[in-house]
């Protein structure tokens, strides 16, 4: 009962910002959490504490779990309770979903879905769904054949296939409910992002920043997958759903058809700007937020102009898709600094008032705290090592670029920081409403860059960057950091050998979990950054961890170990591990449904499908 009370308190504290909750936090149950910043978050839709029904757990993308069974005192006793190998060798990036008594997993290409029954010993397979995507997609995906997550809604598991289809699987039968083809993979675009569901809509976007694609984002109907609205990133205003409601904060983003006029000729059509990252949603404003990729080609001298709306973030009305505002983080991006990283929606104290903001760790090395009603940048400070810009001039919202950082065609320019993959990539951060801090895996590296002129040849790369990457100051390639989004500074950091390319999850007991590319899964004290527990796994970790309560009322923590994706750029570095495909599930002392002297093999579970051997390359 005491435990139940604490859990309830954590839930109520977490949802205190929910205007519709109608319940005041109970004083006696609220933990005495002291926030570093006073930042809070709306944790809608307010799922039951033990469930994890969407990739980032909530619309705001906090990856905050109110669970407290596993805490700073017993975390050192975490052991593997059970594991599950899915047989696919491309990079694993998503987090499992737990809905009711079932866990849902989807592999990288060929995007096989598994439902596991958590109520039975060993979590046996309930069903397997094999969608058989077009193998030609393999040669079109720039950065491994990955999938960053999947969604649950209306009794369906909904996710993207690498070959530009979105598919929905009936969770009761494991059979296909619908499938819609959204683009032509033979021309270059793929789909790798995690579908994101709000109400009756599922939001999806295209990948292909290096393939001369024409990036788009759309809302599909959860019932049958038909397109409700579609917005291209570039091109004329009508195709981008830019109309009278569009009010960017800064004057240089105001004007007609800037998605055409900020490019030479028709180049915006091959300008990529693909929305391949995360989506977040504010239920009060009914707005969604998502970012766009680098412009194509990557050689900037071929596309003079701002290249709107590449390397930017859009705020759109979720129902109509009408653009409300946009902000281009890296105007005329010269270094491949995509703007697709997660936008974490929080509320902060700011000059005596509360402001609804988003926090965005950009590839370019600046962490932006942006008013999400207006698009005004409140804070933009470096969260890691960079030297391409002196600062972001907040009076105009533009970077002040270091002259020595401009690429030159057919000439090596040395020591530009960060390289193309950024100070942080798509690996999602977490936010705790208890500490008021964000937690993120970051990179510390630079590049020597030689640019080449490229021509647009449909279905082939439209790129032009030749580079060598090296570790930044200090010699370590990465860190895991805690970030104050109000002051714009690091609170603590943990040095790691390689890039920290995993997601993070933070709990109501002030534990933050992350993984390393050399195979360590760690729990740290969210307040101090002290590592309290580590477990070496079978492969490097480039996936997002999560935590849930099983039908046995026990808290588990789960993460995939299956290195891949963009992390492959370090595949020749010491410590980089072989690929893998195993989900590890941890509990205190390893107790639970996966072991013990009394466990019997469960009869009647369907055999896994026969799967093709994974390719030996990435």
């Amino acid at each position, binding site marked *: 009962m005491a435990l139940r009370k604490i859990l309830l308190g954590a839930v109520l504290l977490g949802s205190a910002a929910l205007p519709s909750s109608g319940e005041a936090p109970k004083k006696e149950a609220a933990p005495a959490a002291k926030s570093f910043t006073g930042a809070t978050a709306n944790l809608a839709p307010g799922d039951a504490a033990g469930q994890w029904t969407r990739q980032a757990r909530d619309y705001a993308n906090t990856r905050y779990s109110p669970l407290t069974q596993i805490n700073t005192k017993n975390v050192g006793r975490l052991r593997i309770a059970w594991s599950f190998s899915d047989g696919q060798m491309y990079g694993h990036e998503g987090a499992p979903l737990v809905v009711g008594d079932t866990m849902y997993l989807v592999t990288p290409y060929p995007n096989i879905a598994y439902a596991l029954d958590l109520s039975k010993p060993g979590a046996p397979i309930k069903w397997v769904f094999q969608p058989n995507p077009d193998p030609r997609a393999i*040669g079109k995906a720039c950065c491994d054949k990955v999938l960053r997550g999947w969604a649950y809604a209306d009794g369906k598991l909904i996710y993207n296939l690498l070959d530009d289809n979105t598919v929905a699987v009936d969770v009761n039968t494991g059979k296909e409910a619908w499938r819609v083809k959204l683009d032509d993979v*033979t021309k270059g675009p793929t789909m790798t992002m995690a579908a994101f569901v709000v109400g009756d809509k599922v939001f999806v976007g295209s990948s292909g920043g290096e393939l001369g694609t024409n990036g788009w984002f759309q809302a599909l109907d959860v019932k049958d997958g038909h397109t409700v609205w579609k917005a291209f990133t570039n091109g004329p205003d009508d195709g981008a759903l830019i109309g009278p409601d569009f009010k960017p904060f800064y004057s240089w983003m105001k004007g007609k058809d800037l998605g055409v006029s900020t490019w030479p000729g028709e180049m915006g059509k091959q300008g990529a700007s693909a929305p391949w990252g995360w989506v977040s949603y504010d239920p009060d404003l009914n707005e969604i937020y998502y970012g766009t990729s680098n412009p194509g080609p990557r050689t900037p001298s071929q596309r003079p102009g701002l290249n709107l709306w590449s390397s930017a973030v859009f705020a759109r009305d979720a129902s109509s898709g009408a653009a409300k505002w946009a902000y281009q983080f890296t105007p005329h991006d010269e270094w491949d600094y995509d703007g697709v990283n997660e936008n974490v929606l929080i509320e902060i104290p700011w000059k005596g008032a509360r402001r609804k903001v988003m926090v965005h760790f950009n590839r370019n090395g600046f962490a932006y705290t942006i008013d999400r009603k207006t698009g005004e940048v409140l804070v933009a400070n470096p969260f890691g090592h960079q030297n391409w810009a002196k600062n972001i001039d907040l009076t105009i919202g533009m970077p002040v670029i270091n002259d020595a950082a401009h690429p030159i065609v057919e000439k090596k320019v040395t020591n530009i920081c960060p390289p193309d993959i950024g100070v942080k990539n798509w690996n999602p951060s977490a936010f705790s409403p208890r500490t008021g801090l964000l937690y993120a895996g970051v990179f510390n590296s630079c590049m020597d860059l030689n640019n*080449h002129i*490229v021509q647009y040849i449909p279905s*082939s*790369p439209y*790129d032009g960057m030749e580079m060598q990457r090296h570790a930044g100051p200090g010699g370590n390639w990465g860190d895991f950091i805690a970030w104050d989004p109000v002051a714009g500074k690091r609170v603590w950091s943990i040095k790691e050998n390689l890039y920290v390319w995993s997601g993070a999850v933070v709990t109501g007991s002030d534990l933050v979990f992350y993984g390393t590319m050399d195979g360590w899964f760690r729990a740290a004290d969210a307040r101090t950054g002290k590592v309290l527990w580590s477990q070496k796994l079978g492969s490097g970790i480039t996936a997002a961890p999560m935590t849930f309560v099983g039908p046995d009322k026990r808290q588990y923590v789960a993460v995939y170990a299956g290195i891949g994706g963009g992390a492959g750029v370090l595949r020749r570095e010491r410590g980089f591990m072989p690929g893998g495909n195993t989900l590890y599930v941890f509990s205190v002392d390893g107790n639970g449904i996966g072991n013990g002297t009394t466990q019997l093999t469960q009869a009647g579970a369907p055999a896994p499908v026969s799967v093709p051997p994974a390719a030996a390359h990435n």
Partner: protein
Amino acid sequence: MRPVVFALALIATPAFAQVTADTPNPLAGNADAIEAGHGLFGKMNCAGCHAYDLTGGMGPDLTDPSWQYGGKPGEIYHTIAEGTPRGMPAWKDKLTGDEIWQLVAYIQSRKQ
């Protein structure tokens, strides 16, 4: 002039259909051909997938001993001409037979 060049090309190198796995590269080791292949490797976006140093990225490493579709010159020629089921485009409509052999010569010159 153009028909003459075309005729010379036909004489110099086997036509697409005549190339088999065991067909030797008529341009192997030819410095001019290797340099021309180097240029094509960048110009035709090969480097976008296989990297400017040929060690791979989106696509496989072309310098190591592992070949998914065969590493003999005639097999590499065939892969470039026809593409692969895993998404490498077919280049036979964009490159001449000579140009493909130049690319093969460049790749052969970089093999470990």
